[in-house]
């Protein structure tokens, strides 16, 4: 047996040999084509267009950095950027203030907790468009629910018109966004909470830590990843807010609630200054990339997992 000659088979690798890397590339290619044609190319075009005076009708004209220098002096733009930042800070804070208690509330192994989780999450699946129109109705002073309910319980005598001045308008928008998105943040925070091993909490109990000190020294630091993720998602989407301002406040009162994306929309699709709109887009893009970069640095320093 030992000396039976063995046959060397000279054949290409058959069966299913270890798959080669290029096969992976082939799998990715269709997706990449989409990104290339409908994202990367338009992105490059945006930059290119920003160097032109590009009206919708008529001839485009290369004007170098003129759009950018105009942008620097565009008060409306700075105002809308400032407003967007303010909104981002406030709405993110508001969402966390609501979502964190919600997460703590539903973080228990009860059937009812699951039920409430579903309810709190429900508005998330409704589109921003539908949600905004829905709230437009709720808020409307003549036939809206809020006016009627508030009047009904005697809180106010005349119909509230929150959209007529800045802070009330901001407040109701934030209320609507919290309603619409707190459930989403809740779920992310919930994952963080559930990722904390019960043992660690119990160890802290045995170490004599009070409820407050357990929360501050154990729970919060261990939820870091979830917190940062929720922060990133909320900040990014708030910086890009558009629908709620377009539909509910329509930028008013006095153009005080025009967000950054809204002003891009206005420049490109209302004033039809495509070149200037592109310059705005590019500027916003840089702001966003900077913010994202900061957040990614935060994300990268992740604590060691036990």
């Amino acid at each position, binding site marked *: 047996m030992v000396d039976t000659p063995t046959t060397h088979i000279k054949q290409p690798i058959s069966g299913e040999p270890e798959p080669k890397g290029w096969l992976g590339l082939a799998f990715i290619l269709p997706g990449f084509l989409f990104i290339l044609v409908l994202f990367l190319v338009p992105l490059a075009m945006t930059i290119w267009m920003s160097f032109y005076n590009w009206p919708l009708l008529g001839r485009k004209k290369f004007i170098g950095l003129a759009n950018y220098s105009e942008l620097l002096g565009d008060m409306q733009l700075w105002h809308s950027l400032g407003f967007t930042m303010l909104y981002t800070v406030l709405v993110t804070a508001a969402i966390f203030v609501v979502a964190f208690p919600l997460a703590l509330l539903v973080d228990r192994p009860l059937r009812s907790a699951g039920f409430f989780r579903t309810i709190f999450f429900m508005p998330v699946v409704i589109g921003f468009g539908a949600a905004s129109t829905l709230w437009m109705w709720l808020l409307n002073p003549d036939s809206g629910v809020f006016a009627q309910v508030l009047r009904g319980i005697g809180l106010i005598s005349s119909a509230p018109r929150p959209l007529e001045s800045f802070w009330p308008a901001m407040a109701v928008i934030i209320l609507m966004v919290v309603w619409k998105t707190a459930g989403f943040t809740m779920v992310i925070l919930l994952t963080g909470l559930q990722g904390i*091993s019960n*043992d*660690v909490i*119990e*160890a*802290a*109990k*045995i*170490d*004599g*830590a*009070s409820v407050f*000190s357990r929360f501050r*020294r*154990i729970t919060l*630091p*261990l939820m*870091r990843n979830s917190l940062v993720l929720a922060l990133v998602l909320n900040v990014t989407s708030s910086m890009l807010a558009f629908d709620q301002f377009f539909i509910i406040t329509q930028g008013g009162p006095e153009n005080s609630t025009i967000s950054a994306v809204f002003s891009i929309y206005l420049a490109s699709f209302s004033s039809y200054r495509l070149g200037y709109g592109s310059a705005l887009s590019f500027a916003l893009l840089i702001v966003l990339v900077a913010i994202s970069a900061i957040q990614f640095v935060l994300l990268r320093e992740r*604590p*060691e*997992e*036990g």
Partner: protein
Amino acid sequence: MARLELRNVVKSYGIYEAVRGINLDIEDNEFVVFVGPSGCGKSTTLRMIAGLEHITGGDIVIGDQVVNRLGPGKRDIAMVFQNYALYPHMSVRENISFCLEQQKLPKAEIDERISRAAETLHITELLSRRPGQLSGGQRQRVAMGRAIVRNPKVFLFDEPLSNLDAKLRVQMRTEIKRLHQLLPTTTVYVTHDQVEAMTMADRVVVMNGGIIEQAGPPQELYHHPVSQFVAGFIGSPSMNFLTAMLEAEGDGLVVILEDGSRLAVPATRFQEYRAHAGKPVIFGIRPESISSLTQKPGFETIEANVDLVEPLGPETMIYFDIGSVSMCANVDPESDPRPRTKMPLSFNMNRMHLFDPVGGRSLSV
């Protein structure tokens, strides 16, 4: 350093009674190991002692104080968890100092205590690392450090070794034991591994279905199990059990196995079992009480069909059937057993056990 007393402690989850009334006195500095199959209530008992679970009934006394209503931070106990439960975001030093900070001890005292504990456990050079950067054994030591730094009255361990690999397990086992000899403290240690229980305990408590089956020093449990459950649980490989009849034969007693083999009970043990003559019994014998052919008093020999042979180096396990039951014997490798051969095997009847087929109580008096 204190006694620990459980007085008729009960724990129910809804209608399910996880712990059904436990009484136990643990001496100052005693090392008690709770052992038992999964779900028997070991962890629950330990967690009630720690104060992590409310007790449904009974009293727990630490030192001279009934602690039923005291929070876990107030009971002056320390606990080492199965996964160590180290705080992953804190350095080793912070992990150890956390409980001292909660007690608002002065900084200097904290530092001093930490360095003492770290030296004892040889983890001084690990103090600035995070738990994620430690090996299993090192984590284990940090968890111990966190426990000893506060000089607790009672040490509690919940399966602290079950996540380690076999080699490390043996090593950490001796280390825990050594530490206990160095810093004697009342200790309750939970495991489901009977080898750990046997090697570490001053006293082993065998639990089953929420009650204590037997509590006593390891050798007592090994040699005098009060029930078939304890006999089967303690010892590895397990004791072999056969249904049998105990019959009087002349002056003596004989155990008649299913396959008709007759094994004479040594005269020294007549007294013990006489009352049960004529009844069905469970006959139990440990693999190490079965040897290759031995002609000594009290040894009874049968012919076995060897099924499978496992040479372990210093000893060899062989498997054979009696009736429908697979038996295991631990024989000298010199006897060179081979699978699928016949071989005479001798049962050391001085070491046999008889149990009641109903309820499993030991029949020895």
